[in-house]
């Protein structure tokens, strides 16, 4: 049981470290794939894809990426219902996504090679 305890603690630690940057990539990819979206809609789309993200993680992430210039938000107020804040990729965000995507693919390919080499 000791190894399991240690493994569980390590995985949780690793998970919270590794997912931040990964979520940036996922949020950008999501917005690229659907042109524009708002918070709850993004949470659901991410959850459907298998990434459960709380609002406590997503909204601060969106706020940061807006501040950094990757996202362009705009408020819409429909005739009925409540206002919504829609996000779309800014031109900077599109460049950032392309570069992140390439970097990520490179890393995955490297991991595959490393695993293949030790077999």
């Amino acid at each position, binding site marked *: 049981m000791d190894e399991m305890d240690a493994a569980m603690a390590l995985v949780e630690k690793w998970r919270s470290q*590794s997912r931040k940057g990964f979520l940036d990539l996922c949020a950008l990819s999501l917005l690229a794939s659907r042109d524009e979206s708002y918070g709850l809609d993004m949470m659901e789309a991410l959850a459907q894809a298998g990434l459960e993200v709380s609002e406590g993680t997503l909204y601060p992430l969106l706020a940061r990426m807006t501040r950094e210039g990757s996202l362009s938000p705009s408020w819409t107020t429909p005739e009925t219902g409540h206002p919504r804040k829609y996000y779309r990729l800014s031109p900077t965000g599109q460049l950032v996504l392309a570069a992140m995507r390439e970097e990520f693919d490179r890393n995955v390919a490297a991991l595959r090679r490393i695993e293949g080499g030790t077999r």
Partner: protein
Amino acid sequence: MTAREYLEALRSALASMEPGERDDFVKEMESHIDELKERHPEKGEEELVDALTPPDALAAELTDGKGRGDRQEAGGRERGHDGSGARHARGSRAEGLSGLGVRLRDALETLGHKLEGLDLDLDLNLDLGPLGPKEGDRYGEGEIEKVFPADGLDAIRLEAFSAEVRVLPSSTAEARFVARGERGAVNFAFEQESGELAIIERSAGRHAADEIRLELPGNLVRARVVTRSGDIALEGIACELELKTASGDVEARSCPGALSIETISGDVDAQEVGTLAVRTASGDVSASGVSGSAAARSASGDIELERVGGDAAGESASGSVGIDTCAGRAAARAISGDVSVSGVGGRVTVGASSGSVELDSSRGFSGAEISTVSGNVYVELPADVDAELAWSTVSGGITIEGAHGKRGSLALGAGGEGLVIKTASGDIGVDW
């Protein structure tokens, strides 16, 4: 908490933020809550709001991100320098406790491999030396058969490559070994020393046997079978059994002795056995009818233990763990897999990380302790239960009749055995 209270708490938690930005963020969370109310008309506002990340944690996450962003953008700009460290730490903690819902299956696969390396010392001992004929080898023209008197024979050890191995009781007072190769001669060495008979396959590949049949006499104390990829099937063997295989599956039926099984990727299926101890890296384990204790560990396989007379223990890193009907105590551990436990006579201990936990104690309850990080927990107790219930969660929801708050305790009936449930962000539900 109502939406208004939540938004006000959030606003004051964001006091240090630039006012325009703060107003915008609070408005966005208001829109989020409105959207939730619209989509879940069946739920009350407070229920929806209580499920949200607490304002403090949300603010910590937000200012944490901002702190980092500013440092990146403006290098030496002095902004909350002494305070930002504290905020950072707070943000990380909030992340650790409430933001653990992300499932990265691949990562757990990697963990599985790690466990495989660290933990599962399978000692398969398949390095059988240089291949080729040796003194004492015995070739058969595609088939070899040998008979050994049972007298003085305590143990048999069989090591083979890819053959399907069947182990059965012998109808005579002899041990009988038959190996067949469909592609030509097979090559085995037989060594007998002080009560132990070793049968060792010498040729892999073209000269490897395809089928092995081993008949064991009733007086045998111990048998050990090792294969590389061949399946191992046993039926009606009473002696102590030790089975190891890299990728073969193991199937044991009606073996009332002690079974110890190790595989790397092979699955294990045991029915009506004495005691059972299984370790596997990625194989699934299914056991039904274990008269003594049953323990199974897997890095990524699923584990199912049914009808266990003694204690039952199941552990899997990324697979699921199920224990159904166990007379003794039950212990289950999983990291990302789900855990399901029912019909346990003794005490229950369950630990999970992101997997959910279901404990059905409706037929009897003798105490349980359950902890998860983000997994939900559901427990069913007998209607007339006497128990002492204690729960605590950081951000999960509580569905317990008569329970108030994220942390508390409650005596059911006359009180008695403890049911202790702890989660970080998982929901907790108890029915009786």
